[in-house]
């Protein structure tokens, strides 16, 4: 049977990707009267708009219409949670790049040229450009939160050793290759049909309806595939779609808004950068007794998804470690920069980064291998297994997994070899680190953990599959089709995978939080089981056998002793007036969570993994390179090992980019100057280590009853790249005597690495003076 669960079939669109035949939103045949839109953007970080002269825009060649805030018939908002994200700045701009107006023209070029012609008179106001400044001024998008377990104050006071530190952790642009885009089409009676590159068609539908003064029933949103998303198309596409919809509503013409790359990077949110303060108490063996964290994250000018993102930082600042006494303060800083948003890991990476920094400092302070400190502090099995938010870690495999990787990566002898290399080399230094991950799976907002699917079987036995998930390259559509193929026991090529569509499956959650296949796979399975049940009952009745004697197997159905093709049974069932269409629904069991007290079971289960990274640095320039990586990652019982491996490798390299070459740099006016691939550097092929060993943990069925006992894989591998950062720290540390913490700001650009080397050499000299 082709495409059964567990088989490494290619992505369903692979043959279309390679031939350029896969259609993205900008490739859809354009209606004849299509208008092209461009956004007029703020040039100031924080200013009152005294006046806008749009005459030069209106009179530019090819321009058809211009709209701004007063032209919105409904709500001026595209924010998903708190309604603080205006579609068009009302009378005050809050970041450089903010949308002020939109222009519609006959060509893309005409629209973009015209959008630059507005004459805006600004009156500058004080701008907050830095999270620390925001903390000082109590400038927050949401109230600060605290998570407490035990008594960290007292525990810190009595600890044998205590360390404090501060580390800067940079943000990250999603850099999906396909920029933000939407095309709106007018339909009968003022209805709107929206093609959008979005992870969240349902929310887009809601926001477009609100902006245009319509209701959900009047708006349909469709997305067949995205050219990458990574969280950047969870809430951000709403602005683009709302503008396209508003202009279509006003002009009665189809409208397309496709952002230029530079505009996209200036206008849309990114991963939050953090300033992390910590205070840790530990004994002489490296057992951590207490930790206090203060997180200050750059949320930008509005709340967007920052609440849930920063919550997840708090939930993940334990990573895989039992922290008996913990106090976490999380500040959600309001700054006059673009509103930051979801990005693979959703705040989790920043929390895990923080505790791994603490571990590394503890180890260096004690002069022992950081891996030993990690092992000592791992969650226990049957003891020391309650997280700071009260969830029991029931599926802990981190210790075994790390031991397996420790052996397969030959960690110990490589450490010795690297130490000897470093002793013999003055300028080049190597480093190595093994870091673990434990990542909680489920939306922390319990209500989002639901999904729907729609399945039709036609009389020729072929299947139409639809569900609320979206395809951004992660292979969700392939995996869900595999689930249905397995369930119905038919070849996967008998199943048509179809576009996400709000008119087929309503009220779907965003495809986010790594939950896509867990939720939609289960929903599709439920739909398949419904129809299969009807077919079984029909066959039992029709052929006079017990229902248990009807067995679906490899494109056939065994009815008692007789076998018939699946499609033959379908035809007979149809003839006997059996419904061959069904919806499926799934909600994640067991989870509950009280946000007021930060306690409960927010996560259905955890996924685990570990990585060993080895690097080399140049202590004269700070240049650095990843030499070898060994990964062992837990996918449960993988639905498709090839696709899962793709997620592991891709996530890891993306995480390595976050922590090394990808730097967001604003000038003193709050202008982002790294807003294109010429200045913002994501990894290329030559940044990938030649020696790159990636294994999926075997015999690791999910202990929870997930779809075919698989595990979510979208986000967790990104955090395996913490090993790269810590390997760099290890290399830096080798330039000085033992016992010193390494101050390496992330991303570890050559400049950051050189600064760390120089800082260490300064303190080293001082210590010996």
């Amino acid at each position, binding site marked *: 049977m082709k495409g059964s669960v567990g088989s490494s079939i290619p992505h369903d669109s692979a043959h279309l990707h*390679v*031939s350029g035949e896969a259609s*993205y939103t900008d490739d859809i045949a354009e209606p004849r009267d299509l208008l092209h839109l461009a956004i007029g953007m703020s040039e100031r970080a924080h200013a009152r708009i005294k006046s806008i002269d749009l005459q030069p825009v209106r009179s530019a060649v090819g321009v058809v219409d211009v709209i701004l805030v007063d032209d919105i018939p409904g709500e001026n908002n595209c924010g998903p949670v708190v309604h603080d994200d205006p579609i068009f700045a009302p009378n005050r701009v809050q970041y450089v790049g903010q949308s002020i107006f939109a222009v519609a023209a006959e060509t893309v070029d005409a629209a973009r040229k015209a959008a630059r012609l507005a004459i805006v008179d600004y009156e500058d106001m004080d701008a907050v450009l830095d999270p620390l400044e925001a903390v000082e001024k109590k400038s927050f998008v949401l109230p600060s939160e605290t998570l407490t377990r035990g008594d960290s104050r007292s525990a810190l006071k009595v600890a044998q050793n205590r360390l404090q530190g501060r580390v800067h952790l940079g943000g990250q642009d999603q850099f999906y*290759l396909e920029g933000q885009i939407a095309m709106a089409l007018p339909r009968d009676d003022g209805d709107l049909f929206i093609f959008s590159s979005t992870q969240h068609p349902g929310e887009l539908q809601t926001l477009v309806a609100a902006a245009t003064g319509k209701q959900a029933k009047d708006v349909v949103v469709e997305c067949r595939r995205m*050219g990458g998303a990574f969280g950047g198309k969870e809430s951000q596409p709403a602005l683009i779609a709302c503008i396209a919809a508003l202009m279509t509503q006003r002009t009665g013409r189809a409208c397309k808004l496709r952002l230029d*790359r530079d505009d996209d990077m200036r206008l849309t949110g990114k991963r939050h950068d953090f300033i992390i303060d910590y205070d840790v108490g530990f004994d002489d063996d490296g057992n951590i007794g207490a930790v206090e964290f203060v997180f200050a994250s750059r949320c930008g000018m509005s709340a967007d998804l920052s609440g849930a993102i920063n919550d997840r930082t708090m939930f993940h600042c334990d990573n895989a470690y039992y922290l008996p006494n913990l106090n976490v303060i999380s500040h959600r800083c309001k700054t006059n920069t673009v509103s930051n948003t979801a990005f693979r890991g959703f705040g989790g990476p920043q929390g895990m980064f923080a505790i791994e920094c603490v571990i590394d400092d503890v180890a260096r302070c004690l002069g022992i291998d950081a891996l030993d400190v990690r092992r000592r502090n791992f969650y226990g099995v049957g003891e020391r297994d309650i997280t700071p938010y009260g969830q029991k870690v029931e599926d802990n495999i981190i210790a075994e997994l790390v031991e397996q990787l420790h052996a397969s990566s030959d960690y110990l002898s490589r450490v010795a070899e690297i130490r000897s290399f470093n002793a013999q080399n003055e300028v080049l230094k190597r480093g190595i680190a093994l870091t673990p991950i434990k990542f909680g799976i489920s939306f922390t907002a319990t209500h989002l953990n639901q999904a729907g699917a729609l399945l039709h079987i036609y009389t020729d036995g072929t299947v139409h599959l639809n569900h609320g998930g979206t395809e951004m390259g992660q292979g969700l559509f392939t995996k869900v089709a595999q689930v249905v193929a397995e369930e119905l026991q038919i070849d996967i090529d008998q199943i048509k995978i179809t576009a996400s569509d709000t008119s087929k499956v309503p009220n779907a959650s965003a495809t986010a939080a790594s939950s896509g296949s867990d939720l939609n796979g289960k929903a599709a399975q439920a739909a398949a089981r419904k129809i299969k049940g009807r077919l079984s009952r029909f066959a039992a009745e029709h052929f006079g056998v017990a229902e248990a004697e009807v067995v679906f197997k490899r494109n056939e159905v065994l009815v008692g002793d007789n076998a018939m093709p699946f499609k033959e049974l379908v035809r007979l069932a149809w003839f006997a007036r059996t419904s061959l269409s069904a919806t499926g629904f799934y909600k994640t069991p067991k989870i509950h969570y009280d946000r007021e007290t930060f306690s409960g079971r927010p996560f259905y289960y955890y996924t685990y993994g570990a990585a060993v990274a080895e690097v*080399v640095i140049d202590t004269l320039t700070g240049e650095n390179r990843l030499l070898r990586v060994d990964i062992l990652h837990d996918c449960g019982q993988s639905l498709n090992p090839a696709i899962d491996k793709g997620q592991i490798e891709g996530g890891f390299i993306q995480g390595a980019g976050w922590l090394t070459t990808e730097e967001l740099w604003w000038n003193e006016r709050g202008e982002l*100057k790294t807003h294109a691939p010429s200045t913002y550097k994501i990894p290329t092929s030559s940044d*990938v280590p030649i020696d790159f060993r990636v294994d999926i943990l075997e015999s690791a069925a999910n202990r929870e009853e997930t779809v075919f006992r698989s595990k979510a894989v979208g986000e967790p591998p990104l955090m395996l790249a913490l090993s790269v950062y810590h390997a760099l720290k290890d290399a830096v540390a080798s330039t000085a005597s033992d016992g010193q913490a390494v101050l390496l700001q992330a991303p570890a650009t050559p400049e950051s690495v050189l600064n760390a080397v120089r800082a260490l050499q300064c303190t080293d000299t001082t210590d010996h003076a």
Partner: protein
Amino acid sequence: MHPSSSDKPAAEKISFLLDGEIIEINDVDPTRTVLQYLREDLRRTGTKEGCAEGDCGACTVVVAELDHDGESVRVRAVNSCIQFLATLDGKELITVESLRGKDGSLHPVQKAMVDCHGSQCGFCTPGFVMSLLALYKNNASPTRLDVDDALAGNLCRCTGYRPIVDAALAMYDESSQRDASDDWLLGAKGTNTEKPLQEKISKLKSIRRTNNLAIKQAGRRLSSPRSVAELADLIQAKPDSTLLAGGTDVGLWVTKRHRELDEIIYLGNVAELRNISVSATHIEIGAAATLSDVMPVLVEHFPALQELFVRFASPPIRNAGTLGGNIANASPIGDSMPALLALDTVLVLREGQQQRELPLDEYYVGYQATALQPGEFLEKIRVPLPASSSGLQTYKVSKRFDQDISAICAAFCIGLDGDEIVTARVAYGGLAAIPKRAKQCEQMLLGKAFERATIDAAINVLDADFQPIDDMRASAEYRMQVCRNLLLRFYLESTGAETERVYGYNRA
């Protein structure tokens, strides 16, 4: 005013091959890009726009053209987003849609990408396929490093590249029902495609232009002279014209800055300007010779340039961009200039029939300002020989190794007589408004013994030569620190104390 040497009237039609057919376009807009043409006019939407500045590779297409000898075909990947359509005149355009066989079968490059799980979201994939196609046609057995270089201009955000690299190494083994001897695209380098190749050559010859091209459309004019004399006259007549060679910068003026270019003179058809010749005294490089053509010649004489050139932009940019453009553009961060300064390069400038020679060192007079007079243009670049190349080293420091713009670029060329430093050229990019030699540092080196104390003294005066700025690529402080440290690294390498760099560490 138009001193055409040809008797025929200037044509206003461009011709190129696409899928074996000759396409003719009348009055093309001079600044219309190949990508706009493909996506908007032909609705061939397989080729994608990812950045519109030649930095992501989603728009990569392959251009085939007659080689200098006129009897063979050269195949190059280029960025269609910044390539103007008019520059395709006389060439063949190959896009991702060109690859499937008549029977619908996938090309071996495509098949390998599917089999190796080389696509996830698929948006970058057509660009990768086209870069791999160029590799397939040009290199019969690439190493991992060749593959990395071939893919340096293509960004993928999903896969982590490993499966794409696997596909690049596996594509030669993919079997196909199509007959390679009958299908030029199908034949990897070294395979027999004699018959389709000859057909291609004769078609390309049939559209080879013998007269000048002059297009007027949408208020813009593009002239494409065929000789240096004609070019000189054109520039003299319209000194404010935009000179277009590879378009790797001019393209961005249009796609990003929305500049209107009213008068464009395209240099790509001036054969003399693409010549590269080597004599006993110098290498002479026509100003419109592409970086891909120039680099192997320079590396042959100056092996120290190898690493710099592999890291210089990306293959699609080097295939279009020219050394002359890199120099004339006068960017303070152009990667070729520190090395050319260290090699004591001389420029041949021309105005009408008048030529003059100017040391590169005197060419830059301020930020993006040069010594070029109105009506004057860069004709040739002369790199002196014989090379005291043993003393040359170059360094590039950037956030990312491949296809990044330098935070700092450095080149050192030291000539020794015994222990004594008799010539010293120390040049940096990224530290000042122009690429610049460190004259005070050089003075400190000259006449001294080549030893650590001399280097330390020279390092100490670098502060007097440069006052760099903070920007998104690096802080001023870092730039100065690395400026000093690179001179030290050069010394350590020259004396054999350091033998390896991070860039090539364990990658051979």
